[in-house]
Structures are given as structure tokens and as C-alpha cells.
């Protein structure tokens, strides 16, 4: 009975993120991105479009801001009045920041969804349920990274004229108008990896699952893996940079440490670590 359920499990149901939360996490998928290696070539973004059935919306709609780019390459220039010294060759001071959904453990997009269309999976992922979404777009408004994109039109009608529709990835759906979507850490690949491991009767090991962006990156700047797996490369990188889940501020006194998570001061607890670009002074 419900009342009995509430009373018996009260303390369990009252555990928030800072007390360890309700989940016993099976995995905690995370990333480490080395900005030293990133050349801003946008291959990851292209791979993402191909892997996740992202529609190409055309110049006009893109300019209007109605495009979908789960993984976007943010470019920032060193402006002369912000300390950059090259007036003529500003691009020499350019820096790149590949931004995909940060899969926050205390995600701000989740609690505001009125219909529970976005929730936290036992894999530590921030899942978006397209079927449940009613398109209130509150989640996108409340994402400090602005990493959620909305289907303003039925893009599928025009994005893949014959025979391009043959190249769609059958492992995941094509979204219709009115739903929100975002980077899933290639959840279809995670599913495949887990299924394969289960068939072989073993645990998922590092390297079983690689996201499309990590696979494509020519400089191997993106490393993907399970943060709960002690031997995973990504865990080692996080440890080396002394970045931990649940911490809201990085100790910057050691100059060797370059790791940070974007906007971690907001206590969203993201699962993507970036390593600062080191430049000549």
C-alpha cells in the first residue's frame, strides 16, 4: 500500500543528491576533453549529426537559431581589449570549446520538466524521453549551458530527401516537431555495448562503448568512459587532474592541474571534464 510504502521507505525517499541520492549507480558515464589537443575541426559535430539522425535545417533556419547541434564547437577569440595582443591575426588567439550535454548529476533541466520527460538513469545519464515530451521548453531555458535543442519544425520532412533517408541510423528514432532533444552520450551505443557484454557474460569494460565524437576526433581529444570503473582511461584522467564529482570548486594553486568542469560553481555536478589549453605566455 502506498501509505505503508511511504512510511517504510521515508528516509530512503528523502535522500537528495548530496546524501548520495536515491540511485545505486551501475555506471557513471563521463568524459574528459583535452583542449590542448582540440583543433576545432568540427569532425565530432559532423559525426554526431551522422550518428544521431540530426536533421540539417538549412542556412535560414540555422541563422534564426532554430538548428539542432547536439555537439557544438564554441569558438572564442582573444579580443584585443580583453588581453589579446594580436590585432591583425585574432584567430591565433582563438580557442575552442566542444560543448555537448554535460549529463549533470544535479541537472537543472530535470526538476523543471512538468511531465517527467527528462530523468536520471541508473547509468548516471540525463535521459530525454521523446514520447513523453510535450514541448514546454522549460528545460532548455533552465540549462545554464544552453545545450538543449527544440524541434521547431518537422525537420525530417525535408532534411533527408531520397535516397539520403537510407543513411539514417536505425538504432534510434527520428524526432518529430515539438519535442526537445539533446546529446545522449550515444545511448544507443551504450545499449549495444551493454548487451554485447551481457551476452558474453562479463562486465562492461573500458573501450566497449565509444561515442561517435570520441571515435571521430582525429587528435583523440575526447575520452569517454565509465567513471565508476577504476581502470578506465577517463577515470585516470579525472584522478590525475584531481577533479571529482560532487566538488564545486577546483583548487587552482597547482599550476600543473588543468582540469575543470564548466560552470561547476552552479552545483550542477556535470560529468564532463575539460582540460585547460596551455599557451605560451
Amino acid at each position, binding site marked *: 500500500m502506498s501509505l505503508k510504502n511511504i512510511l517504510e521507505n521515508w528516509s*530512503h525517499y528523502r535522500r*537528495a543528491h*548530496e546524501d548520495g541520492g*536515491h540511485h545505486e549507480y551501475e555506471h557513471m558515464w563521463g568524459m574528459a576533453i583535452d583542449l590542448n589537443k582540440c583543433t576545432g575541426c568540427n569532425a565530432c559535430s559532423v559525426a554526431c549529426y551522422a550518428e544521431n539522425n540530426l536533421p540539417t535545417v538549412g542556412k535560414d533556419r540555422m541563422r534564426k537559431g532554430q538548428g539542432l547541434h547536439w555537439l557544438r564547437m564554441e569558438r572564442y577569440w582573444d579580443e584585443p581589449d580583453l588581453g589579446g595582443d594580436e590585432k591583425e591575426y585574432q584567430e591565433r588567439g582563438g580557442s575552442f570549446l566542444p560543448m555537448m550535454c554535460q549529463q549533470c548529476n544535479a541537472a537543472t533541466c530535470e526538476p523543471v520538466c512538468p511531465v517527467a520527460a527528462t530523468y536520471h538513469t541508473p547509468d548516471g545519464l540525463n535521459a530525454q524521453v521523446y514520447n513523453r515530451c510535450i514541448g514546454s521548453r522549460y528545460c532548455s531555458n533552465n540549462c545554464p549551458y544552453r545545450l538543449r535543442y527544440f524541434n521547431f519544425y518537422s525537420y525530417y520532412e525535408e532534411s533527408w530527401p531520397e535516397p539520403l533517408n537510407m543513411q539514417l541510423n536505425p538504432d534510434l528514432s527520428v524526432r518529430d516537431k515539438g519535442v526537445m532533444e539533446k546529446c545522449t552520450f550515444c545511448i544507443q551505443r551504450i545499449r549495444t555495448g551493454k548487451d554485447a557484454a551481457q551476452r558474453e557474460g562479463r562486465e562492461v569494460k573500458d573501450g566497449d562503448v565509444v561515442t561517435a565524437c570520441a571515435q571521430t576526433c582525429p587528435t583523440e581529444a575526447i575520452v569517454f568512459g565509465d567513471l565508476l570503473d577504476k581502470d578506465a582511461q577517463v577515470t585516470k584522467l579525472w584522478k590525475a587532474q584531481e577533479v571529482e564529482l560532487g566538488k564545486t570548486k577546483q583548487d587552482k594553486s597547482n599550476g600543473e592541474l588543468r582540469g575543470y568542469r564548466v560552470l561547476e560553481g552552479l552545483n550542477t555536478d556535470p560529468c564532463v571534464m575539460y582540460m585547460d589549453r596551455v599557451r605560451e605566455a
Partner: protein
Amino acid sequence: MKRYYVMGLFSNFEEAFSTISEIRQHAIPGVSVDDVTLKSPIEHPEIEEILGDRGSPVPKFSLFGAIFGAIFGFLFLASAQANFLTQPQGGKAIITLPSNIVLSYEMLILFGVLSTVIGFMVNARLMTKRHPLYSEKVSLDQIGVMLELDEKNVDSLKELFKKHKVLEIREEVSL
């Protein structure tokens, strides 16, 4: 013995009130102020001094409705959340007190209001037929004093009404 309904219509409200006062002071033996029904186009809070405090259970309906709404609201929300474990969201707990307090508060008011309105309809005997002596002048500007009484008292009551400048007297045999 036949019982009669007698209603006098007054234009001057003070005269009507003093009629009731006299009935209260037993001007007519055997007729009590409890038999008096006042029909008025407006509300008279001061009339209770004359008619006696007849009380109203409507606030009790409000209280119980509100308490029910708050408790039901909270339990409903908490049990819904406790049965829907795929929504531990944004690092919040499964049963979140701040949101449930806000929503229980709304339920408190909703059920309080509904229960108050039901209490009013039941107690004021709405949705029943109008009394045969009801006069349309009551909804305009006259005040009616109606009594249910024995046949023998009808004449003395009419006398009393006339003493207070009644405009019109209506009567009807009670069944």
C-alpha cells in the same frame, strides 16, 4: 388545528424590526421568535440581536474541508512520487517537501472552498422550491416578516402587523 403561514411586507425596515422585537417579547402568546422568518433584499448583520443568534456551521465546513484537502493533498502527492521512482530529478529527493507543501497548500484551499460552498448550499437550503408566500417585492425594496402559527393567533398577528404600518399581508394554509 390548522397551521397558517402569514407574511407581512414592510417598507420601513425599522418597523419590521420592532415587530419582531415585540414578538420576541411575547406580544402574542404562543408565538415565539423562533417561528419568525425574515425575508429581506439585503443582509442585516444586526438582525441577530433581534432574531437571536441562530448560528452557522459554514465555517466548520471550511475547516474540515481545508484539513482534508491538506492531508489528502500531501498523501496523494507523496504516494504518487513514491510509486514513480524513475523521477529522481535534478539531484532532488523522491519525496520533495518544498514542492509538496506548495501543492498541498493549493489543495487545502481548493477543498476548503468546495466544502464551504457545499456547506452553504446544504445549510441555506438552496436548490429547493421557493416558499409559496415568496414575494417579488422582497427582491426589490420591501422586507417580509413571515411566521408559521396556529389559526387562533393569526388575527392578533395581523393586528400587530397593522400597528407597524404593514403594506400587505399574505397568508397560506400550511400543509
